[in-house]
């Protein structure tokens, strides 16, 4: 529960001839977490992939490329599961068959896209010419006259006049520039060109010699439409083709990938001329079967006591807590030797969440929402997240009962919306608005409990890794500091309740003194005097738990505000008010629920990550990732 | 053999030629052996150089790959394309035992810094090294080319010499020796004929 699955380090040694069969077995067993051989030292080298790897790689790359054209959303359930023997026979021919079928179509698509791009270019040429309004016949085909057609920054009329009087100029505005056509005698052409260039002239090469630009444009538009239709059709065809072959393609991809993984196993192994060694970790409980099965391949499986001991972390949590592994791992993966905080988080997270939101109405909505969404989003991550939401929803309902809140209305007490008998009841946990100071004290108590747990884990982690001396100097001292803080707060509260000046001496303050002294001595010894300042950090950590109340108050505040606006200000004002009131109510609570998922979720997470984990959790572990995989689109005959 | 004039003059000439041929044969044999030895030496060198070239090719490819990765494909490729300088070289001749072999006088293809085709500030030393590696590779290729030509020529020459030696040994000398034998045989026969004839004339003269 708090510890990950126990691992043993194993070493598989054998002659190279048996590598292939060993790889088969290892992949099938799917339990060995392989430690890659670095290949830096000495006699043993990283192995070279088996010969088939090259061919398989080519197929796999092609297949995945083809598959990338299918948009597979989330979780796809195959209609047909292919058997391995069936696949390995047809793999080669099928891949090239699929490739040629689809490639020709993709090529066609590329051609059409190219053509479309050229049409767009041509259209861009023609549009300014249409603006100019001269028919194409006039723009070329002269013997003694040169025509300049192009864009220009400003009207060249006067400047050309300086050079020659014998010319004709047409001009039109086009997209913040001018289109111009200048007709001059050949003799003056060079001078005019110079003048034009000075004005930033850019030539337009006239695409057609006769007909009309408008007609050409229409023609191009028509062609474009046709091409686009064709493009759509081709895309649909590809999709149809792929959907039709999808199961086969997925199966082939899986099959080839698995074969490839086996062929590339040597890259993780150390090999010499005749032998190979694979080093890795196996869960202790599976070791015996693993050894038996693997040794059928005439290789030796040894349990080693290597000095490099970095086992991967395989979570071992009850299924209730499983979804919370997502939250643990998004902080970091615990090291093998560390306490896995998942179960603790599974306990506290919903409590914090519920404490903050604490409303029967919102809780019920959250439960419904999570159940509904979990039918839509099937991926593992979403499922975990929605399960966490469900737990939080349940907790919200329970705390809602405790606080006596329903959509911000009070259920119990003299303002109860239920009226009657309920007006005499008191909410078990108190009313959050009126009993805020009381609840503040509760949150501080929660803080001390939660963080104490963190320190206890911390003491255990450090003791395990560096010995008890370090554990006492680095973690136990802070645990005492925490207790002293608890005493100080107690003293503070006692004085306040008694109505005497807060800092006047009492029993709790005195109790804190020896703890503080012990803490100070240990800290100076273990970490140095610089770290004494961290006492303040710990204090701020403690106060940080006040957010349990603060976020809740904000949520209640919103709800009450919306209710007040709707019921007391709008609804009494007739039918329009009624409608506006209902809208305000729905909208307000909708926003509040959104915030109610987001904020308590994040804050609860934060309390775990920042205040709790930092006390003990270093992380940086390796996730247990055994060699092999669970087949989905293919099946193996026994 | 019939066309040979079996005269003493001819015999003397032939004898001289046989002597010369035998000496030539010995000389050619020595030359052949010498050439083979030379060939072996150069072959050794060639092996080394070719090995070096392959190595340089490998390293040039390495450098290139890394430069492409570090400085961008475009930069590296365009530098390759912009390298207009063709390797220039002049062919001179060297005499190995009367065999003329080419010596390729290489101009180093290494470029001057000021002839770079890429900015220094925006690139890394990888691109320098890739360029340098390729320049060295060109050098190495030229060296190999040179050795290869030499080897080819040597092989041809060795073949030729071997053919000549064989021709002398198995054909020319035995032929000449046979002719000489024939001539001397004929000459002896002619001598004998003459003696017989002279004896007959003597006898006739004695009768009359």
């Amino acid at each position, binding site marked *: 529960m708090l510890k990950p699955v126990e691992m043993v380090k194993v070493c598989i040694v054998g002659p190279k001839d048996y590598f292939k069969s060993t790889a088969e077995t290892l992949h099938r067993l799917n339990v060995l977490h392989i430690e*890659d051989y*670095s*290949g*830096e030292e000495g006699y043993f080298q*990283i*192995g*070279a*992939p088996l010969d088939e*790897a*090259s*061919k398989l*790689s*080519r197929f*796999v*790359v*092609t297949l*995945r*490329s*083809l598959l*990338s054209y299918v948009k597979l959303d989330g979780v796809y359930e195959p209609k047909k599961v292919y058997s391995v023997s069936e696949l390995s026979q047809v793999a080669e021919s099928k891949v090239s068959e699929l*490739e040629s079928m*689809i*490639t020709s179509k*993709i*090529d066609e698509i590329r051609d059409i896209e190219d053509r479309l791009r050229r049409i767009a270019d041509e259209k861009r040429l023609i549009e300014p010419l249409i603006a100019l309004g001269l028919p194409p016949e006039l723009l070329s085909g002269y013997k003694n006259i040169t025509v300049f057609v192009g864009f220009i920054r400003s009207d060249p009329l006067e400047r050309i006049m300086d050079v020659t009087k014998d010319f004709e100029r047409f001009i039109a505005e086009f997209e913040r520039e001018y289109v111009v056509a200048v007709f001059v005698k050949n003799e003056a052409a060079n001078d005019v060109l110079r003048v034009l260039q000075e004005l930033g002239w850019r030539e337009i090469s006239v695409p057609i010699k006769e007909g009309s630009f408008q007609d050409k444009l229409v023609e191009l538009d028509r062609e474009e439409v046709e091409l686009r239709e064709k493009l759509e059709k081709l895309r649909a065809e590809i999709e149809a083709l792929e959907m039709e072959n999808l199961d086969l393609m997925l199966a082939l991809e899986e099959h080839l990938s698995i074969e*490839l993984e086996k062929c*590339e196993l*040597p*890259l993780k192994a150390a090999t010499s001329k005749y032998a190979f060694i694979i080093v890795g970790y196996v869960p202790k409980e599976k070791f015996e079967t693993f050894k038996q099965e693997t040794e059928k391949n005439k290789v030796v499986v040894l349990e080693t006591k290597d000095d490099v001991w970095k086992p991967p972390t395989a979570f071992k949590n009850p299924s209730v807590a499983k979804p919370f592994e997502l939250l643990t791992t998004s902080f970091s993966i615990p090291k093998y030797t560390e306490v896995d905080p998942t179960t603790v988080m599974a306990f506290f997270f919903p409590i914090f969440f519920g404490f903050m939101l604490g409303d029967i109405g919102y809780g019920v909505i959250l439960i419904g929402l999570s159940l509904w969404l979990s039918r839509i989003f099937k991926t593992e991550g979403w499922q975990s997240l929605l399960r966490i939401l469900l737990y939080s929803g349940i907790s919200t309902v329970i705390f809602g009962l405790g606080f006596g809140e329903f959509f911000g209305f009070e259920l119990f007490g003299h303002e109860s919306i239920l009226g009657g008998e309920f007006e005499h009841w008191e909410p078990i946990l108190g009313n959050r608005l009126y009993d805020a100071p009381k609840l503040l004290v509760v949150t501080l108590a929660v803080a001390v409990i939660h963080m104490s747990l963190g320190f206890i884990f911390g003491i255990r982690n450090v003791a395990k890794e560096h010995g008890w001396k370090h554990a006492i100097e680095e973690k136990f001292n802070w645990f005492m500091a925490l207790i002293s803080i608890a005493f100080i707060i107690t003293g503070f509260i006692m004085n306040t309740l008694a109505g005497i000046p807060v800092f006047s001496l009492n029993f709790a303050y005195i109790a804190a003194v020896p703890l503080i002294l012990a803490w100070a001595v240990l800290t100076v010894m273990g970490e140095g005097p610089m770290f004494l300042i961290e006492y303040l950090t710990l204090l701020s950590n403690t106060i940080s738990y006040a957010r349990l109340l603060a976020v809740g108050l904000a949520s209640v505040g919103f709800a009450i505000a919306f209710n007040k606006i709707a019921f007391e200000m709008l609804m009494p004002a007739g039918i329009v008010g009624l409608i506006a009131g209902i809208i305000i109510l729905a909208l307000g609570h909708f926003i509040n629920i959104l915030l109610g998922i987001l904020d308590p979720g994040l804050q609860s997470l934060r309390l775990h990550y920042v205040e709790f984990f930092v006390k003990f959790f270093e992380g940086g572990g390796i996730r247990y990732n055994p060699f092999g995989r669970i087949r989905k689109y293919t099946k193996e005959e026994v | 053999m019939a066309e040979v004039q079996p005269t003493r003059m001819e015999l003397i000439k032939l004898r001289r030629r046989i002597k010369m041929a035998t000496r030539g044969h010995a000389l050619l044999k020595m030359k052949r052996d010498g050439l083979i030895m030379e060939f072996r030496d150069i072959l050794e060198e060639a092996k080394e150089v070719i090995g070096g070239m392959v190595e340089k090719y490998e390293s040039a*490819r*390495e450098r290139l*790959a*890394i430069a*492409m*990765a*570090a400085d*961008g*494909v*475009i*930069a590296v*490729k*365009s530098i390759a*394309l*912009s390298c207009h300088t063709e390797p220039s070289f002049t062919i001179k001749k060297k005499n190995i035992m009367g065999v003329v072999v080419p010596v390729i006088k290489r101009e180093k293809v290494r470029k001057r*810094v*000021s002839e*770079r*085709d*890429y*900015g*220094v*500030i*925006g690139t*890394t*030393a*990888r691109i*320098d*090294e890739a360029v*340098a590696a390729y320049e060295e590779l060109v050098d190495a290729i030229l060296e190999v080319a040179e050795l290869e030509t030499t080897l080819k020529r040597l092989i041809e020459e060795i073949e030729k010499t071997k053919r000549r030696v064989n021709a002398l040994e198995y054909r020319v000398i035995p032929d000449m020796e046979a002719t000489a034998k024939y001539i001397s045989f004929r000459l002896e026969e002619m001598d004998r004929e003459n003696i017989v004839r002279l004896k007959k004339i003597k006898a006739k003269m004695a009768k009359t």
Partner: protein
Amino acid sequence: MALLRRISTKPAEWAYIVARVRVMSRKLIPREDYNKLLNMDIHEIARYLEESEYKREIDELAYKYSGMDLVDYALSLNLSRTYSKLIRISKGVPRQLIVQYLRRYDFWNLKNIIRGKMFGFPREEVEATLVIAGEYDEQFYRALMAKETIEDIVKTFEGKPFYPILDKLVKACPLAEFEDELDKFYYQSLTSISPETIDMKYFLEFIRMEIDIKNIKTILRLKTEGAEMDEIVPKIVPGGYQLKEDVARRLAAMELDELMKSLEGFWFHEAIKDVLREPLSRIEVYFDRMWAQKVVSKSHHFPLSILPVLSYMLLKKIEVDNLRILARGKAEGLPTEAIKEQLVIV
């Protein structure tokens, strides 16, 4: 008190971007993974990237490309997107400085486009090298690449302060000189900012130190190839931190051995004091690593400043370069050691 004043000016602006950048830095490829990557082949590297921060890019491109092309495209695209994202998520002074820094990619893109045009590379290949993160957007570059000639490309920039440099290119200035001029222009435009606030001062100091690194690399590279002083001097970027123009001139006049010795006393000396005999590309790797480490440690000293952002941008660029070298090395079948030597693993 000075600290208090600094924090109280516009802390939220910095806090936001720095926090984001810090998280992004954490997601850079860890150094241990390079050992694994070195054992993979090109397709496996692509797949590794598909499972990392490069997923989106690989997925988008893998239907079409594979192997080296895929990795090349994905890396450039990811770098562009990462940088654009930095601009998108910052505002005020941080944004201003980030934009200024990223303008280097405008020049990088421009150089590549001009080269591509000059040597006739296919458009796709040029596109794969573009890092769209500076002043201009994708649309602009597309239009630029579609232009017929280099003259047309140059004409687009008429009126820009660096237009004269482009104009020179058209008038047959060697490509090498043109590129160096552009880079020098970039650094000059940065160092000419007047350091009004403390943030600007940090930024400038960073740039000046980067210039030092550039300059010493340039000097060493050119010296190794036997360049003369007057060949080196035009390639020196003015405005260095310690390695100012006159110092560079003095160093350039020395023999290589003497030069190496006189580097003692420069802030970057520690990077290379033991490795003087190694090939230059290795020495560059040491420089880059030391520079990155320096920037990272400085960014820890000044957490609410531009330095963490700059350090991330630097590390990201190093990562992309590393991955590209790795992938290309693997695709070309280079030996593992040769690849590892070229990686800057911070």
